[in-house]
């Protein structure tokens, strides 16, 4: 097997392809690389990482409530075990992101979780059921946002 690409080499590759990432790539430790990207340029960076840098495994998508913004971390890994964590922000007022289920078909399940639990708006998602909240869940309530109050659930009555 050829020599493993080091974290610094990966960092250089990313910055060479996208000069705006200068200073935004952080090597947390061995095999763990973080990168902060703007929402507008997320798609092209993500696509390049998957298709050209060999990050062919989608581990999971993390959702975060970061005050004014919703944060999304896409954890992708390559065959060598290096994990690239791409962090992007969308304003809470309009938390619209584009689906990645055209690249990773199984990713739709994580995106449906973002919709149900954080209230993200994911465009381009194939039609399907909601997931994972129960039927009859009140509209506009997102349980993993910090301002969520569980009292609204029992006020709604049966099954709510």
């Amino acid at each position, binding site marked *: 097997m050829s020599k493993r690409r080091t974290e610094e080499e990966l960092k250089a590759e990313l910055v060479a392809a996208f000069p705006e990432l200068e200073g935004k790539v952080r090597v947390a430790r061995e095999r763990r690389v973080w990168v902060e990207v703007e929402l507008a340029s997320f798609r092209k960076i993500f696509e390049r990482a998957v298709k050209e840098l060999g990050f062919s495994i989608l581990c999971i998508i993390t959702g975060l409530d970061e005050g004014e913004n919703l944060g999304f971390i896409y954890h992708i890994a390559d065959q060598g075990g290096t994990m690239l964590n791409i962090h992007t922000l969308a304003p809470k007022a309009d938390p619209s992101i584009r689906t990645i289920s055209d690249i990773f078909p199984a990713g739709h399940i994580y995106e449906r979780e973002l919709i149900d639990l954080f209230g993200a708006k994911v465009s381009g998602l194939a039609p399907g059921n909601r997931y994972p*909240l*129960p*039927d*009859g*869940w009140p509209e506009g309530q997102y*349980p993993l946002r910090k301002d*969520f109050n*569980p009292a609204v*659930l029992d006020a709604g009555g049966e*099954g*709510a």
Partner: protein
Amino acid sequence: MKLSERLVNWARIKSPWAIHFNTGSCNACDIEIVAAITPRFDLERFGIQVKGAPRHADLLLCSGPVTRQIETRLKRIHDQMAEPKFVAAVGSCACTGGVFRGCYNVKGGIDQAIPVSIYIPGCPVRPEAIIDGVAKMLKTLEESQKGKK
């Protein structure tokens, strides 16, 4: 009480059939329920058999807290059982909601959805505790029957 009713009651006390239903358990109590029906612990010496359909069962063994999604299903399963029916809340979560109490997706203990006859606490419950709980319930039934003769 008519002889036929007494006979049915005797049969029910001597051989209650059970159905196991997971209402949102972490699976630990389910494993213990399965252990309780194995020959090692031998629940069948009380005539207890786990059946595949709620329509055949007298005793509903519920494990886990009631999630909001399963609540209507639990009520439906309970409605399908023939009267008189008994419900056992197996495990701490089934008794009170346990560590899941107050979660956005959890309603609480089994008694938040359907009436419960016996509470068997434990995390997870030991098979001995399940057997003890069910045997105590049968004993109370037997005593209540004696008064009716």
